[in-house]
């Protein structure tokens, strides 16, 4: 009996920075950002003109802009294909970002009802160039 296997290339997201502007939030209120329902560590957040780790505080008009340093966690030196597979969660694509006044490690599913103030959107996480040269560096047997 023939057995068929179709190989697929997995596109791992590259480290990248996003500048995110939010309007219409509760004024003068600390908010928290969630990436795919997980709270973004403050060490990866920087209010524009502020410092890394500063609170995300809306201005008097309920606006704020911050920078988000995204990193899939895949080290450039990764050479194990198995390790690579474990990081499939870092596949590039469209990801959901939510900003809310709720401060928890993960976003509650009913955040739209329980937030005093929230906004949501999506961002496109881009990829490493999935060319053979990149795979050769990271994932081949060499």
């Amino acid at each position, binding site marked *: 009996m023939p057995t068929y296997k179709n190989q697929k290339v997995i596109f791992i997201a590259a480290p990248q920075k996003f500048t995110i502007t939010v309007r219409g939030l509760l004024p003068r209120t600390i908010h928290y950002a969630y990436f795919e329902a997980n709270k973004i560590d403050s060490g990866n957040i920087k209010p524009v003109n502020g410092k*890394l780790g500063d609170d995300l505080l809306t201005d008097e008009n309920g606006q704020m802009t911050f920078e988000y340093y995204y990193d899939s966690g895949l080290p450039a030196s990764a050479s194990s294909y198995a390790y690579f597979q474990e990081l499939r969660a870092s596949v590039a694509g469209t990801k959901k970002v939510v900003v809310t006044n709720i401060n928890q490690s993960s976003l509650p599913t009913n955040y739209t009802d329980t937030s005093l103030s929230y906004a949501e959107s999506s961002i496109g996480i881009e990829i490493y160039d999935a060319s053979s040269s990149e795979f050769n560096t990271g994932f081949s047997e060499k």
Partner: protein
Amino acid sequence: MSYSFDLAQTFFVDADAVKQSDAVFITSVDLYFYSKPIQGNTKTGIASPGVTISICPVDENGPMLESAISTFSSRKEYSDILVSTVGATPTSFTFDQPTPLKTNTSYAVLIQFDGSDDDFQLWYNKSGEVKLGSTTLTQTTSGKIDGFLYKITNGKVLTPERDADLKMAVKVARFSSTNETFSLVNDAHEFLTTGEFDGTFRAGEAVYQDRTPGTGTLSCNTTSANVVGSGTSFTSTFQDGDTIVITDGTALNTDVRTIVTRTSATAMTLNAPLSFTNTSASYLKTVTGFIDYTDAITNTIVLYGSTANSTVYLSTGTTLVGVDSQASANISSINLFEAQEVIPSYAVRMPAGTAAELSVSFANSTYGYSAARSTAIQNGTRYFTAPLGSSVIHSRSNEVQNPGSRSDGKSFFGDLTFTTTNEYVSPFVRQENLDLFVNRYFINGDSSDEHTVNGNASSKYISSKVVLSANQTAEDIRVFMTAHRPTNTNIEVYAKIHNSSDTDETFASKNWSKMELVNSDTTYNSTTNIRDMSEFEYKIPTFPLASTEVTSGTFVVTNGSATITGNYSTVSSDIAAGDLVKIADPSFAENYFVASVLSANTTAFVIEEAVSNASLAGDGRVVSKATNPNDAFLNNQNNNVVRYFNVAGAYYDGFEAMSIKVVLLTNDDTKIPYVDDLRAIAVSA
């Protein structure tokens, strides 16, 4: 995109009104406000709420809110929103770039009030009500296609107000020229090799070149963009628009700012307040940029947005520092990027009656320029290829020191020319979609040792290990691919197979067996059309492709005997134990068998089992020897079931685990093969 709107008004784009153009470009939308919230005393708590509008398509259910064209929006802050109690004063929402819409199609203007504050009220026309300033009753049907007003609750739920329309005006562009040329240049990149990184840079973070601080100190704080110097010479040291790095030496207390104006030698205004307060901070006049790419293995850093100029530029021996990561690296060389392939991805839309053409030129490695090359825009198509060194992007720090014939020193320049025959339409592209991919190939033409786990090819793809289902021993592999293979290039395919009974070797330690191209080896694709592809099929060969024929003499085969006797006396010089040999009747190409050699002496060699085929017996037989005796082959003595001999000399028929390796090769700087899709099938023989 996230969507949360409060009102929507549909409208129809009538081609009759624009000389039958296929598309129009909205430049602005005028809305008429009756009222707005009281500043500082709003019901939402937002001190100065603004209004944002966007455009979305319409289907049979009304405005498609989730399809709002996020990149085409316009916003007015509170102070810019004009109100009129007689509906006479428009507030014009102008788009940064004209918004292209198809004609003979309905769209909707979406309106979002900050905080959904219903103290924002717009003038509208409701059927049956008295028209403002008259005694006439209004009507809402005025054109060939009616528009509708929708109220939106919870940002998403549409409620039609079918007897009402907003008072608004949608304005479209009318072009005064039939052709226009835009000049494009490369971004200010720095391609750097450094010493070992101290810390980890973060993608996108600002970095600066460490330098001796400027003379004097300055006082700064977190609330004002004005800084005051002490012992400084701001006026002579800087120009308006320069970047400045300010630090107090404390971790994370380092900011990159832009100088808006220099008021005096001791006072200037920045583009934003600092993130820290200090009365005696240091400042640097230096190069800044942003991390585009880093590789801690090769100590490579690529920056974008470099501020290098003819007086301040990066140099070797200096240090780059990350503002947020505080990582650092010493610059050891400032490099260039060699373009071997250019693919414009300008996402240029060309409605009927329009055209676009691109002309590009690159610097060469000595800061001269190639002749411009022109072509009609074909998005995603390879534009040209170039031998190494003939087309390069220099680091900005080298560009500013070697401007060549261009005053800005840019390595790349391109002219994008739009033409049209209809004043209402034009080719269009958004600035952020003006992507030009400049590729460099990491590929060579050397596939030596690719049968091992350490081949010499630069470019290869290795599939994951596939383990077949239990009791599903496969007997052959076929690999199919749709690929582009121009002349002077090649695509080699290797298979790694493992039989579960083979305990002498693990799958990982197995060598690769080169597969045979079933197609004609003369099938080559266009060298100019990268989308010209062919279907290629590969199979396990009947004898390893890498082999040599023994030319010292011929051999005698006896049916029922494992001894193969030579007609010369130096057989052991050609054949040795462990060799994989093919013994063939030269008169009949299909009359052969493959065997492993157990031993050899000067006159004969012994194979692993006696010959059991009378048609193979006889003299004058020719022997070929595989270069890699562990390569797999289709065994014609066993229904073409794949066989391999392992390192211990044992043979195995069939396999349960497999992997595929595709090796891309070229002997030409300007041509590469590539694989569009790959299918591997493990089959019964």
